[in-house]
């Protein structure tokens, strides 16, 4: 792959309701921050990829409504409906096509403006599944159960993720939900859908973010410390829940294998310094850690209990607080990429982990991590 770099990043604060800002205002804020970070003006952006979902926005062709805010007016603009990691993947491909030197990718979400379960219910197939009323939480509960049954993972091991990530959020001023928790407190929070309890689930959030990608030629002119895309891949599993082995993140394993191969990584645990992954529910961090190859199947809980995934551990996972501490859908995956970029650049503030040279960002689409996108980012070309 021709080298491509992230040259600018911007995130708004994630909050339960940012009533003072319309979603275009959030996009404007994120894009302005990314341009400032890159030291660029909007005139230097060759093309734009926006990330949005019409159901969440309550507006059809929602991408067209943020044109002014993201500066795509008079530019080539296209849209991805899905997680921001997939939007950034498309933005990367547009540079690799040779047609563009820079791509701005921005994502927005205002969970406060709609009713999340009614929207996530609509992701299911309307003839056989949708009228049963399942949505993101209940379908994820089915996956959690299948995964925990298969490997004997306990609710307490999942609770450790919630304790760690909510605790990490205290060092991230943009996080929505820093909480000082104990495993007992997570365990005694009420069940939503067994085995998932309130404190195993991500919050509903408002937020936006933006990244600017550039070809090597442009990146090296713009910035003295670009963060390079070393490897990237995505892979998708079946649509019907019953067709999948929900306990097996095989699409993630495949995406990780290909992204690592591109990045020349053979031993992820040794060669990767930090992970930001999509922990919409606490069990997901364990499953995705296994899928990403940081431990064997069913060993995510033990790895977490050992302290290895804490900010000071051997392989820090979600030092930002993760999606459990702020979950603007679509934006959330882009934030994983941005957190990795900040860590590699040494600009992660209080949540900075020492010596991060290579980091992995991960996003998901569809129920129960149907599709996974894995990014390997590094400080050296």
């Amino acid at each position, binding site marked *: 792959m021709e080298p491509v770099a992230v040259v600018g990043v911007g995130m708004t604060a994630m909050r339960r309701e940012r009533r003072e800002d319309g979603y275009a205002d959030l996009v404007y804020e994120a894009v302005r921050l990314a341009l400032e970070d890159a030291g660029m003006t909007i005139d230097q952006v060759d093309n734009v990829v926006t990330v949005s979902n019409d159901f969440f926005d309550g507006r059809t062709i929602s991408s067209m409504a943020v044109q002014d805010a993201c500066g795509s007016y008079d530019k080539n603009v296209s849209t991805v409906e899905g997680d921001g990691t997939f939007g950034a993947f498309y933005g990367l491909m547009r540079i690799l096509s040779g047609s563009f030197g820079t791509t701005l990718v921005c994502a927005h979400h205002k969970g406060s403006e709609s009713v999340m379960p009614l929207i996530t219910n609509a992701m299911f197939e309307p003839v056989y599944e949708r009228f*049963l*009323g399942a*949505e993101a939480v*209940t379908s994820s*509960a089915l996956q959690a159960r299948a995964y925990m049954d298969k490997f004997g993972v306990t609710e307490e091991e999942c609770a450790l993720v919630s304790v760690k990530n909510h605790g990490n959020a205290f060092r991230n001023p943009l996080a929505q939900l820093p909480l000082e928790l104990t495993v007992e407190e997570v365990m005694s929070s009420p069940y939503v*859908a067994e085995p998932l309890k309130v404190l195993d689930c991500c919050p509903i959030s408002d937020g936006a973010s933006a990244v600017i990608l550039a070809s090597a030629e442009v990146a090296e002119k713009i910035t003295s410390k670009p963060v390079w895309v070393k490897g990237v891949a995505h892979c998708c599993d079946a649509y019907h829940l019953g*067709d999948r082995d*929900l306990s097996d993140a095989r699409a993630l394993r495949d995406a990780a294998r290909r992204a690592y191969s591109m990045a020349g990584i053979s031993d992820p645990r040794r060669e990767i310094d930090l992970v930001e992954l999509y922990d919409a529910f606490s069990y997901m961090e364990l499953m995705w850690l296994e899928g990403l190859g940081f431990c064997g199947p069913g060993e995510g809980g033990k790895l977490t209990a050992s302290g290895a995934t804490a900010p000071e551990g051997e392989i820090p996972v979600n030092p930002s607080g993760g999606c459990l501490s702020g979950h603007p859908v679509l934006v959330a995956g882009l934030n994983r990429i941005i957190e990795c970029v900040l860590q590699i650049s040494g600009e992660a503030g209080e949540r900075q982990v020492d010596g991060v040279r290579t980091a992995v960002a991960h996003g998901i689409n569809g129920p129960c991590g149907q599709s996974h996108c894995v990014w390997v980012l590094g400080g050296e070309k």
Partner: protein
Amino acid sequence: MEDWRKGQEIVVMEGRIKVPYRWAAGEVGTRYLQALRDERKFLGTRCPGCGIVYHPPRRHCPDCGRECAEWVELGDRGTLVSYTVVHRHHPQLSPLPLPFGYGIVKLEGADTGFLHLLYEFGEGELEAGLPVEAVFAEEREGSVLDVRYFRPLREVG
């Protein structure tokens, strides 16, 4: 802006997007739903290449792409692959009073599982591999809700 903001409530426009849709079940879905409605029977389709029996039925095999023209009658009993007991749910989405369950059920004769509701189970009774049976609605109209739910199998044989 800041001075003006003092003591002001931000205006929120409330609305509701209500658009009727008509999702065609297609030939395969129609035959399936008719069998549920008229005969209380679950039908699957078999892939001639992989031999996999799909339920819900598919016209084409997701694995190898061949046409699955052979219909297979499945049992109205099966086993639980996974399950959850739901304690909090949006009222508009709850087809049964709380707490009810969702399960992935693999019917007798099928190779794939399918999503459905669980009810009439005791506390702690649900587990992977548990035999379950379909409870059909008396009045059926050709939808997946013609099966009211699955419950643990009460009698063996």
